[in-house]
């Protein structure tokens, strides 16, 4: 398998297949970050496409010393933040409002719950937890949400997050710590955390 640097070098020489390989290799993490930031699969796909197009047009500015994933995350971060600024009022859902929309369009929770390999009750429980976790993430402020997704979902290191978000290490660690605390509070507020949990998310 070609390294990221080799793929970039080939793409810079005009090899389309190399650029396609870059897209295929990083489409999932980029999309995953964006969809959790904007909470809408359609918008997320548009923004993810924009990220790769920007990357393609500015590929000559990529520094091979850095990880390609970090560079793409940085573009994804900027693109998403621009979008969130333009649609500032839509980022943090009001109580209940977004959830109803999500139910209608089969949003994140529907995507997250893979019911094919579990029995119905287990799948329903799992879907419940996925929905609660996604709801809790969506209630975090964007800067917390982003570090949570990058660190826990994409498995990025502290340094990679620093590179991607242009933040000092201390800020990243603080944001992550606070985000985790807030996430736990949100999950508790949604009814999780006790052995005899009753009707979470209701």
């Amino acid at each position, binding site marked *: 398998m070609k390294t990221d640097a080799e793929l970039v070098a080939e793409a810079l020489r005009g090899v389309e297949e190399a650029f396609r390989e870059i897209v295929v290799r990083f489409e999932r993490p980029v999309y995953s970050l964006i969809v*959790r930031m904007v909470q809408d699969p359609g918008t997320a796909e548009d923004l993810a496409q924009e990220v790769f197009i920007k990357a*393609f047009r500015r590929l000559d500015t990529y520094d091979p010393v850095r990880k390609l994933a970090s560079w793409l995350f940085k573009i994804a971060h900027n693109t998403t933040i621009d979008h969130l600024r333009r649609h500032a009022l839509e980022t943090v859902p009001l109580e209940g409002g977004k959830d109803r929309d999500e139910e209608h369009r089969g949003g994140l929770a529907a995507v997250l719950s893979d019911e094919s390999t579990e029995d119905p009750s287990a799948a329903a429980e799992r879907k419940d*937890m996925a929905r609660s976790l996604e709801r809790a993430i969506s209630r975090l402020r964007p800067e917390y949400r982003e570090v949570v997704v990058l660190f826990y979902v994409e498995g990025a290191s502290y340094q990679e997050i620093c590179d991607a978000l242009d933040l000092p290490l201390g800020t990243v660690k603080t944001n992550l710590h606070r985000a985790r605390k807030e996430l736990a509070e949100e999950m508790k507020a949604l009814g999780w955390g006790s052995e005899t949990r009753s009707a979470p998310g209701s």
Partner: protein
Amino acid sequence: MRRSDEEILNRWLAAEEDGRDEVAEDALAALFEALPPLAPPAGFADRVLARAGLAVPVPQRRSFFAARWLRALAMLPLLIIGLCLPWLSEVLRSLASLAGVLWSPGDLVRLGTGSLIAISQGLVAALALWDWLLRIGRTLASPFATPAVALIMAGCLLVSLLAFHFLRNLMTRDRSWTHVESI
């Protein structure tokens, strides 16, 4: 939810309450690992390439003559015919004499002139028909050439245009989507 997921969740929340940061971090990481990944819809890469102005590679149909040996094979008969040209007339003559159908030059001339005559006769008939249609057209159009009839025609055209305009306004003016009944 699988039992292990619930245990992880409880472990994470308990660790957060107790201030055990490392345990909480590990548990939350494990919890996220349990979630299925999110991926963009199929064909995402194709759409990106298309939007970026890069051609999406389409599998091309292989040309029948793409193989070099096949091209050589196709050229071979042509080459043989070309090389045999000096002997072609003799070959044809011998073939014709075998079949007994070789035409003399006189026969060929007769055939040519016959064809020309047939074509000319067809052309004359077509022109006669065209003349006839033209005469009918002129006869029918002659009354319209007078100023009075032309004026009447222009008046009719104006009235029909006004009527069309009025009807269109009538159809579009009161359209209201709020009256659509819910299904």
